[in-house]
């Protein structure tokens, strides 16, 4: 299983980025191989519009099955849902911490967007 976590850094100790569409990048953790992959999201950082849905396409292309992020807006959520990707909202400080909480089953799947579009 591949888990994409929004982050502003490049390793497990990096802080989580609470934004989804305009996150700096995604750290994709493969639970089978324990491998890490960094996926850039900078093209969406300054997009005039549609950052959320393009970010959702990016994580889908990276093969993620799960997204852990701070907040996710309605349009991005629609794409993630259509791609069969489960969304978990999490306020952990670091990527490592978020993965830990996920592994312990302490995160709940989001059934809806938790913020309006353009919330940040």
């Amino acid at each position: 299983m591949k888990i994409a976590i929004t982050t502003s850094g490049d390793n497990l100790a990096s802080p989580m980025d609470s934004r989804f569409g305009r996150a700096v990048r995604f750290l994709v953790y493969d639970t089978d191989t324990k491998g890490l992959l960094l996926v850039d999201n900078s093209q969406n950082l300054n997009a005039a519009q549609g950052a959320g849905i393009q970010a959702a396409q990016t994580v889908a292309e990276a093969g993620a099955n799960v997204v852990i992020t701070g907040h996710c807006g309605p349009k991005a959520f629609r794409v993630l849902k259509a791609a069969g990707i489960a969304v978990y909202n999490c306020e952990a400080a670091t990527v490592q911490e978020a993965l830990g909480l996920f592994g312990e089953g302490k995160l709940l799947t989001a059934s809806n967007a938790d913020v309006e579009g353009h919330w940040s």
Partner: protein
Amino acid sequence: MKVVIASGKGGTGKTTVAVNLAWFLANCGRKVQYIDCDVEEPNGNFFISAHFSKRISAFVMLPVVDQQKCTSCGECSAKCRFNAIVRLPGNTMIFPELCHGCGLCLLVCPAKAISEDEREIGIIESGMGWGGISFVHGVLNIGEPMPKPLIRKVKEQGLSDHIQIIDAPPGTSCSFVETISDADLVILVTEPTPFGLHDLKISEEVARARGKSIRVVINKDNGTFRPLEKFLEDRRLKITARLPENRKVAEVYSKGDILLEELPDYREHFSSIAAEVFRQSENLEHSPNGVLP
């Protein structure tokens, strides 16, 4: 002749200047059309007492994907300038609220899987108002994020044998740029405050970048704000009129009345603005290619 009344800052007196200029020109016996491009909150009709006789829907093109024909190649998604298309395997999703209806996706799709539908973004109402003034405005649908295509279609209703007085939306972004795109004269209304000056600077820069003839009307003038005078001098901007600050102007406006009927003292100022419009109109007629220097 297309005269756009704009400002940048809201509340400077765009509609007041537009309505009263239209009134003045109509009283001079000119054929006048009032075009309200402030499609997000049009209100010129109240002042012109417009009676609408025609109402049409305005549409933008909306792409529709035939998922059977679609090969999920992602070309449409990659080329879309508005980030409105997402390609998932076997499911290409279009987000109408982001789509500008440009049609590029239809052109780039190698599988010819995208066809055109249309989506209503607002309505255009037209009719006749006070003193034989032709009137047209657009009303953007609630929740619709894209005013620009509607503004374009409102302007298409312009009558070429009329002096078109075009009330611009506030702001200096896409809506403003679209409104002034084919203007022969842009009259920027400002007020002697730091806020008025700040937005005047931006709108002047935008209008200048678009190669427009610019004139300035100072509304609520009290002659005390030096930075505005300095800016106008530095930029060599021609002041067409200074409308004196007067509480009664706001009272007249709040009742939806015509300033020049209630306060005839202001007629001389609008006479100056009208004279400038006539001058530009003559220049336009005499210029060989119909473009002002």
